[in-house]
């Protein structure tokens, strides 16, 4: 049973603006490897490990912003099963 080593975390990822183009995707379903206290940073680490555009766009030092369930959060924000996690560049509206 997965819950013995961590919670099952199935996420809906949303990519926006430059990241949507760089990843050639508006989003995807992601099942996070079992993790004790999963955060946005764990999602980023998982994506980065894919290499390619994910690795370069999400490299440390790149300005990236996050929203969990459509609210702005920091990378240390906890996530839970069923969350919508959006990853995007700093906003430039107005």
């Amino acid at each position, binding site marked *: 049973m997965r819950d013995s080593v961590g919670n099952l975390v199935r996420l809906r990822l949303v990519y926006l603006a430059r990241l949507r183009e760089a990843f050639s995707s508006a989003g995807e379903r992601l099942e996070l490897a079992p993790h004790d206290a999963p955060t946005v940073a764990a999602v980023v680490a998982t994506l980065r490990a894919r290499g390619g555009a994910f690795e370069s766009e999400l490299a440390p030092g790149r300005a990236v912003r996050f929203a969990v369930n459509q609210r702005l959060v920091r990378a240390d924000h906890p996530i839970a099963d069923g969350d919508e996690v959006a990853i*995007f560049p700093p906003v430039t509206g*107005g």
Partner: protein
Amino acid sequence: MPVRVQSDDFDGGAEIAKLRTADRSVGAVVAFIGTVRDLNDDAAISELTLEHYPGMTESALQEIVDEAKARFDIRDALVVHRVGALAPGDQIVLVVVTGAHRGMAFDACEFVMDYLKTRAPFWKKERREDGERWVEARASDDEAAARW
């Protein structure tokens, strides 16, 4: 509705009049209109496309308006933001704040714009002669938002 996201243009004068005349204790109205400039970093812009995060946009704007109402002694506030393809000279965003006195209305209107610029999920893509590019966030916007 105090916040709206739409591809259609807006009538700033009509929106201002609506908010102003709804409340006779209003003595001051401050309005901001952001528009598409014909130049950015000295390059001519032929088109500006506004992308947003549909699920989040309205609630992010509503939160900014609620925060403005909590922080400043104002009567009401309205935000209208356009999305989609715009041309130079087109209107992008309208913020209207009403208050009994002008000081708080000015502060609240500038606060809403500063927060919108850093917290509302909109992204601009410019079309220039040499192609398209995403507009980069400006450090000055972060600094403006950090003042509040």
